[in-house]
């Protein structure tokens, strides 16, 4: 590149380079000062396997003060490098990722000083807690790649959770609950599709309305019926864990990914299916064409509206499954607004993940991790107020993702109704 081409962008790049470098260094200073110098002495122990595991991995012990100090120093050096050198985008992301990772390690050392924190337990609950978010994000992905904005993920989760709980309680059959929960999400999606595609209603407004509708409907039914018939209609069984033979015994990975209930397996199955189909099959190419340039798709004989209907409803089925997890995959009984904003987090994960399934899972896992951490910390007992802890998952998702994800671009026709002329 000639010098001339660097001049104009120079001002902006320098600003950004400086800002990123300072952020890195600040993270380092926090590691060093907050968790290191002002931290506790002793060692922090991290459990690497669960009780009763067939292959036992020894615990990891780290000096509770020394680790943050070293981590902080590394981050500060990285920050300085970031300011001085013009790094490639990949390297930039790596340095930012490293600093965030080191911050996390420092934080954990500080929180677990003198105690034992089960790292495997933390990761295990990360995986399960992110299930509804991953499924919600997949649902969003299916819709938005075809050009329909889906704000109604929250409502689909909620309705799925309600119907799954009631159906599983009434029939005593978990599979009936799983299926009906998924169908309930599909039903709400069908409403979204009909209004958005056939009646060209604004998709954002429509999604919000459907969420309010789902919340109102399930809330009303809960108050009027479930409270009275709690024992017959809102005490569903819960799916038991099923450990995958052999794979479940692998240290660390085993307990996290291969020792859970059917929802986790379905989630990752769906994830890989959607990713593979979207980017490697004829179906996926056509879906993406519809979401990017529907007129071009139509002129080569792709049926735009049919594709959109199909994808929106498919997405609803997936989100409904995520809803079912909230009841019959985890706590059992339905509670009012049990989805507690997970649908919106899923939407954010989708965007942060650049509208790709794998990216969305990354973002969803960040949330799941922060959520799990928040839970563990409140058990370990830290001086952080519990309200702040509850905020952690949301704040962490925004911060991490904002730091690591650059500019994202939605499918070009996302949210734009297609009207045949």
């Amino acid at each position, binding site marked *: 590149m000639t010098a*001339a*081409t660097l*001049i*104009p*962008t120079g*001002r*902006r790049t320098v600003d950004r380079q400086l800002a990123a470098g300072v952020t890195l260094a600040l993270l380092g200073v926090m590691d060093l000062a907050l968790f290191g110098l002002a931290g506790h002495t002793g060692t922090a122990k991290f459990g690497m396997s669960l009780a009763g595991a067939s292959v036992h991995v020894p615990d990891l012990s780290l000096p509770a003060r020394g680790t943050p100090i070293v981590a902080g120093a590394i981050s500060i050096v990285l920050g300085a490098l970031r300011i001085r050198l013009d790094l490639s985008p990949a390297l930039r992301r790596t340095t930012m990722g490293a600093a965030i990772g080191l911050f996390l390690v420092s934080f954990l050392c500080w929180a677990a000083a003198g105690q034992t924190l089960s790292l495997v337990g933390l990761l295990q609950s990360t995986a399960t807690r992110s299930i509804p978010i991953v499924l919600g994000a997949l649902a969003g992905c299916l819709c938005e790649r075809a050009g329909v904005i889906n704000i109604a993920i929250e409502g689909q989760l909620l309705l799925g959770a309600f119907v799954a709980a009631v159906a599983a309680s009434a029939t005593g059959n978990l599979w009936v609950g799983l299926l009906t929960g998924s169908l309930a999400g599909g039903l709400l999606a069908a409403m979204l599709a009909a209004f958005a595609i056939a009646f060209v209603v604004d998709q954002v407004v429509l999604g919000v309305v459907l969420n309010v509708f789902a919340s109102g409907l399930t809330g009303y039914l809960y108050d009027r019926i479930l409270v009275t018939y709690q024992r017959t209609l809102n005490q569903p069984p819960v799916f038991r864990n099923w450990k995958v033979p052999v794979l479940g015994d692998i240290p660390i990975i085993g307990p996290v990914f291969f020792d859970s209930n059917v929802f986790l397996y379905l989630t990752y199955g769906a994830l890989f299916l959607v990713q593979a*189909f979207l980017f*490697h*099959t*004829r*179906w996926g*190419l*056509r879906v*993406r*064409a519809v979401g*990017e*340039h529907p*007129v*071009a*798709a*139509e*002129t*080569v*004989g*792709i049926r735009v509206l049919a594709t959109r209907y199909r994808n929106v409803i498919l997405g609803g089925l997936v989100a409904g499954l995520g809803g079912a997890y909230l009841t019959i995959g985890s706590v059992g009984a339905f509670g009012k607004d049990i989805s507690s904003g997970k649908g919106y987090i899923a939407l954010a994960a989708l965007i942060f993940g650049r509208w790709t399934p794998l990216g969305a899972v990354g973002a969803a896992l960040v949330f799941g991790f922060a959520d799990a951490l928040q839970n563990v910390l409140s058990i370990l007992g830290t001086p952080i107020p519990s309200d702040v802890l509850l905020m952690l998952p949301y704040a962490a998702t925004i911060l991490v993702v904002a730091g690591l994800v650059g500019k994202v671009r939605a499918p*070009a026709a996302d949210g734009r109704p297609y009207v045949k*002329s």
Partner: protein
Amino acid sequence: MHLELRGITKRFGSLVANDHIDLDVEPGQIHALLGENGAGKSTLMNVLYGLYEPDEGQIVIDGKPVSFANPKDAIAAGIGMVHQHFMLVPVFTVAENVTLGIEPVRSLPHLRVAGRLGLLDRRRARREVKELSARYNLDVDPDAVVEHLPVGTQQRVEIIKSLARQAEVLILDEPTAVLTPGETDELFAILKSLQASGRSVVFITHKLREVQAVADQVTVIRQGKVVEHLAPTATDAQLAAAMVGREVRLRVEKGPAAPGEVVLAISGLTVADDLGGTAVNDFSLEVRRGEIVGIAGVQGNGQTELCESLLGLRPALAGTVTIAGDDLTGADTRTVLRAGVGYVPEDRQDDGLVGDFTIAENLALDVYDQAPYSRGPALRLDALRDIAARQIAEFDVRTRSSEVPVRTLSGGNQQKVILARELSRPVNLLVASQPTRGLDIGSIEFVHKRIVAARDGGAGVLIVSSELDEIYALADRIAVMSDGRIIGIRPPTVSREELGLLMSGAHRDAPAEAAS
């Protein structure tokens, strides 16, 4: 394939866009469709491509009547179309765009299920593109992402896309409007090789030179009717007269310029492009009142960014812009317009017009808040309508009324709406980018006259055009732009050869530099 259109009639409400049109396209023929703006050429082609259903008449292929409910039917019958706004998915690769809808899928002999999943066979898609591009000299990289390709190459992708669908007849609607002269020549070579393979081409153009260069047969349409069939050997004057129905002066008369004070002074201007590179690089130029400065250059050498920066649509990274004595570097667009700047943007649909607004509303877009269009906070709709009616008549915008959405106008008539708006008020400075793109020759004559009149009225005029004819017709001074800078200023007496050399010279430097 022998294609005949018999008595095609298409009405939009009371307007008859096509009035019993007959057209006969023989196999291996390059057929030029000529006609004024709004004559009904695009409409006719849209009927042929299944986008509009004709009210009367028939399409006959090899003696058999056919009817198309949608483009899919037309494609199946062997008709391909290259639209003015390309039908390509910008984020897809060339191979993906070409095979969309007819994707090759992998068949795995021992895994029947996998075949049914429709796994994309990217290797075969790539090979298909390569084969077609080799056979017809359509040079493109199958793995390039379409949005990163220059328009000329995108057009080639469109042609390959049609060929991959076995098109026997290829329709091109004003294909050269967005091309550089070099790209135009390449396109013509491609059309010739298609012709050699027995395919036919119908193409629409306003440029007589192109008709004479490639067409075998010319059909002229005026006000929805076929008025004449001509051989391509017809002279400019004959073709022009057939189109417009009167004699057209192909070169406006203008007196010598009387340059006055400097009205636009650009000094050391540097502007970034969308990708963060430098589009305009230490650019300096002065335009005086009473003169027309033409910026000649191959498209994509910073002209677009220069104009956008002058209008406050794109930030200046360095340098100053002074208009009528005021330093307007980095000023917002409204301030620039208030300083008496008229602006004809390069892309009429994205930057010049609001498609769903009426013609009257579009004509008042930048002056709606001034008398006589408004009184206090209220718009005066009657004034809006009256003035619109006057401008429509003056600029010969072909429309039924001033109250129709501007997007229903033909391409050339949309351009006239912008010109009417920008040329109807007194300005200190007129910045016009490709001002006559898509206009018929009669309208070009008129617009050129108006631009010269603006000059004689004391305005400074800056014309950006990739059309050398236009530069020669208008400019009092020609500035050649290359790689974001002015690389030479010449009087209008400069020869085409010298100008061409200047324009391409910079291009020859670049690879040599890279190689050394």
